[in-house]
């Protein structure tokens, strides 16, 4: 009987000791990330059956269990994944937002300054300083475009290098998870007891992967986890890690994307859409949804400005009496032919801008269907702009032609109409005298005219180049009665008896003018070249007018408006991401609280446990002392 009490006491002593260890473990790991508090689970020993019934035989510790809920943990994991995606996106887009919002870095001020420069030339067309000032303001506008574009490319490079380091991080975690799987399988092979701390460590590793990319796990019967990232790409299966790689995209080698190492060697690219969530998802999403359109939008403003300004400039005449040349070197669309692996066909595709009004801010993928047919997909909305069509074809302000060779089915080309617009714009003319402020033609009514009709100054018809006979002298002579007139001049075909409409357009040789009022019989109006028109500002006036003309987006938007639309788009997106991110932070905190509420260590609780098990230990010790006394009593009976 005495031994039984002693045994019971010892079992209690042991259990209390385990309890104290567990509490101590909890206290010392209170700040360990991913740690779940542990409890020792006690139960009674098998009782001894006697005639008096079952006599209890003390206690034993059945297991040490971690307080853990799979559901809460996976909720926390997905909240974490979404939060780090939004945080990454927000951090990246904030750079564009800050850049565009800075008035000293934005294009808006430079556009206004350029406008002032053009207007100054319009007010003083013969002034060399005014022309020089216009050129300087054009230079600084171009410089602004280029520096913004350079900043965009820095951000793009930053995205690339972050993708690379994220992939390295994920691979390192994958390696660790596979090792952890191995250790857990080994540890749990010894018996049914859970390897609590190893499980916590593995969960923590999975959480770390979850910060980088969306992750899902499938528990296996041997205790290992199969881990999948994104939308089902295996990362760890059992003890085998799969190695991800950051690869240059096949379509655009300047763009890193995610690939996987193939078992037989080599790597294969995976679609970006597969990698949602986490830092990686945030980076990929930011690049395709914000960075590309923003850079394209800026490029579109630069391209439209350069091309429309050139078109008007070429209709004018410079200070030396020559027809205006191009003012800006206009950017051209970029067509990227894949190199690794290259297209099977030999086709080389060319794209030129045929109408700036039609340009969008999207990129395009041209896919060959074979037999000379092509399909063009607009990447911003994934719409097939045309299918099964032969080239050349003009669409969205672009004319796409087959420059050489032939394509075979499966070949593809990436067309970026305005991506490099802000990078490639530059000022083409060098001397202030080359600014075409004047118009090459002038008109006059003969002094001998008896009627009251007057002739307008005339304008050169768009688009350039101007008609070869533009500056040929042409006379309009009114007949008797003066309701018709005869036209004489090279290139006009010398028509006679042309009906006169007051204020109506009269157009020959690529110019248009109006005669209004009442002409007299025999009145003569003459159009001729204007070689000495140094004080003529007609073309400068039209150039200045371009800034307030709708040119972009089907002729509905001015340069300034297109730029402020870009600022507003980026601002709105940033705002949206920030608001979502704030909401997601709250969701994350709630999930964290729910999880911590269950699994987190409360030091007060552990202090109480320490006291509890200390007292249990003391009580068990007392019991052993009593058992000892009982034994002494029995021994003294014999004296």
């Amino acid at each position, binding site marked *: 009987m005495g031994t039984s009490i002693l045994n019971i006491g010892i079992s209690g002593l042991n259990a209390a000791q385990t309890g104290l260890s567990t509490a101590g473990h909890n206290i010392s790991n209170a700040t360990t990330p991913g740690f779940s508090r542990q409890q020792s689970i006690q139960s009674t020993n098998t009782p001894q059956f006697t005639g008096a019934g079952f006599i209890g035989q003390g206690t034993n510790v059945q297991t040490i269990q971690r307080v853990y809920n799979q559901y809460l943990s996976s909720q926390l994991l997905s909240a974490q994944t979404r939060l780090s995606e939004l945080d990454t996106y927000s951090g990246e887009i904030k750079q564009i937002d800050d850049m565009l*919002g800075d008035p000293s870095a*934005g294009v808006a001020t430079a556009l206004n300054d350029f406008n002032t420069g053009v207007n100054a030339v319009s007010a003083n067309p013969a002034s060399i300083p005014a022309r020089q000032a216009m050129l300087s303001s054009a230079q600084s506008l171009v410089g602004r475009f280029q520096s913004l574009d350079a900043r965009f490319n820095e951000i793009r490079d930053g995205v690339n290098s972050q993708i690379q380091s994220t992939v390295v991080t994920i691979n390192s975690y994958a390696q660790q998870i596979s090792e952890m799987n191995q250790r857990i399988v080994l540890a749990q092979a010894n018996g049914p007891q859970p390897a609590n701390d190893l499980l916590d460590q593995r969960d923590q590793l999975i959480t770390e992967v979850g910060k980088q990319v969306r992750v899902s796990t499938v528990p296996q019967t041997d205790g290992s986890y199969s881990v999948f990232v994104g939308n089902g790409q295996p990362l760890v299966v059992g003890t085998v890690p799969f190695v991800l790689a950051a690869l240059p995209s096949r379509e655009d080698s300047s763009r890193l994307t995610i690939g996987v190492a193939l078992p037989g060697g080599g790597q294969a690219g995976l679609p970006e859409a597969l990698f949602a969530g986490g830092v990686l998802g945030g980076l990929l999403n930011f690049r395709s949804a914000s960075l590309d359109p923003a850079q394209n939008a800026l490029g579109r403003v630069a391209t439209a400005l350069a091309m429309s300004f050139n078109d008007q400039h070429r209709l004018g005449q410079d200070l030396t009496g020559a027809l205006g040349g191009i003012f800006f070197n206009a950017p051209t669309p970029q067509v990227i032919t894949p190199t690794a692996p290259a297209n099977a066909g030999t086709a080389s595709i060319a794209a030129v801008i045929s109408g700036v009004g039609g340009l969008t801010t999207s990129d395009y993928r041209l896919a060959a269907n074979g037999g000379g047919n092509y399909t063009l997909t607009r990447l911003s909305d994934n719409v097939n702009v045309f299918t099964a069509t032969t080239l050349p074809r003009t669409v969205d302000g672009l004319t796409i032609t087959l420059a050489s060779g032939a394509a075979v089915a499966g070949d593809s080309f990436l067309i970026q109409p305005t991506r490099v617009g802000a990078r490639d714009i530059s000022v083409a003319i060098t001397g202030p005298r080359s600014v075409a402020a004047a118009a090459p033609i002038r008109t006059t009514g003969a002094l001998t005219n008896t009627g009251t009709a007057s002739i307008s100054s005339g304008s050169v018809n768009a688009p350039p180049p101007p008609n070869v006979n533009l500056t040929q002298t042409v006379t309009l002579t009114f007949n008797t009665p003066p309701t018709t007139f005869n036209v004489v001049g090279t290139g006009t075909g010398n028509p006679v008896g042309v009906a006169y409409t007051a204020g109506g357009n009269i157009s020959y040789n690529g110019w248009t003018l109006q005669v209004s009022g009442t002409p007299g019989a025999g009145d003569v109006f003459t159009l001729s070249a204007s070689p000495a028109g140094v004080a003529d500002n007609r073309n400068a006036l039209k150039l200045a007018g371009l800034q307030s003309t709708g040119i972009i987006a089907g002729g509905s938007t001015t340069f300034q408006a297109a730029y402020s639309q870009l600022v507003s788009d980026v601002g709105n997106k940033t705002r949206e991401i920030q608001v979502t991110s704030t909401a997601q932070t709250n969701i994350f905190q709630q999930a964290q609280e729910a999880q911590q509420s269950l699994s987190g260590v409360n030091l007060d609780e552990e202090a109480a446990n*320490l006291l509890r098990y200390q007292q249990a230990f003391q009580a068990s010790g007392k019991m052993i002392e009593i058992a000892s006394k009982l034994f002494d009593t029995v021994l003294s009976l014999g004296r």
Partner: protein
Amino acid sequence: MRIATSMIFDAGVASIQKQTAALQHTQQQVASGKRMLSPSDDPLAASRALDVSHASANNEQYLSNQKATGESLGLVENSLTSIGDLLQTVRTLAVQGGNAGLNDSDRRSIAADIRQRYTELLGLANAADSTGQYQFSGYMGATKPFSGSVEAGVVYAGDDGQRLLQVSASRQIAASDSGNDVFMRMHNGNGTFVTAATTTNTGSGIIDGGATLDPSKWNTVANSKDFSLRFAVSGAVPPVTTYDIVDNVSGNSLLTGAAPGAAPYPRVFQPGQAIDFKSQGAEPAFDFGAQLIVSGQPASGDTFAVQASSSQSVFTTIANLITGLETSSRTSANATLLANRIGTALTNLDQASNNILTVRASVGSRMNELDSLASAGQDLNLQYQQSLSNLQDLDYADALTKLSQQQSTLDAAQKSFLKVSSLSLFNYL
């Protein structure tokens, strides 16, 4: 609910961080005076602010264009004033020159004076602006527009260009006027037709400039606009003077519709009585809406021409006047010729003055318009500044209240965190 110790720390730190972030944002707003630190703070207002500052920049551009136009027009106006004064002086001299009491040398000295004015006028017409560009040469700012002399006549080397400037979103105003319009393209005579006495007239008939009663009638197709008045004096006592109006194009008399007959002519002439270009009595129906007056007594065979006006430069007008004064002598026929010449010169000078005045009025009305545009533009500028300020600028009262509120919230968060986190059962073990 079970609370983990880490939750106390996490939640405490998170709320302190949130408060600090808000406080820092407000502090930045206060420090910069801007409501929006980046477009994302208020994307709508940010893009609106860009639009407004663009509109404001445009408006300022228009204001500066208005100023440039105003300066240019001011110079033109100065020149035009001088030219107007000069023409007035020439007119006074012309009237003096017509004085019958003057002898040839008096007239020559007047002619010499007018020659001086002629040179002065040529100088004014070749005036250059502050940048050295000729004011009245149209687009050809570097080309001297007028050159020539009294004898050789003056040639215009410029063109008809008028430099327009964009002075508001929808308005372009001419900042210059071409020399053709100011000096060359002016109608002689009364603007519709011109009258002249034939130099070989022997009578004392002096024709006036005539008047247009109805320009639309003058412009009818039936009007050939080229007539001769023929006078004849009968031998009767007292003599009766008659006249005929001959259409030089058809060669027929306007009054009979047939080839002009011999004297006496169809109408009877009374000195100073209006001669109407309108059928009277049994004459074939015609009405050209014009009349003129011949005063004095024409002699038999005297003729006067009536023709449509054509352009005559102010230089030609003054040159004719000078020639007239220099070549006239004191015989009576010459006196009539001189009177007719002076009359024609005065009519043409008035036309020139009128033309200058018209251009001046046009310049003046443009300057007026500029003034009203400028004041509208300045008002608009103020409005733009105001809406920009509304969009961008910080409401300091609001921000400072928010700042102190956030300060005290942060303070409370920090203090309460300290209190809560310092509670521990271990303190008592």
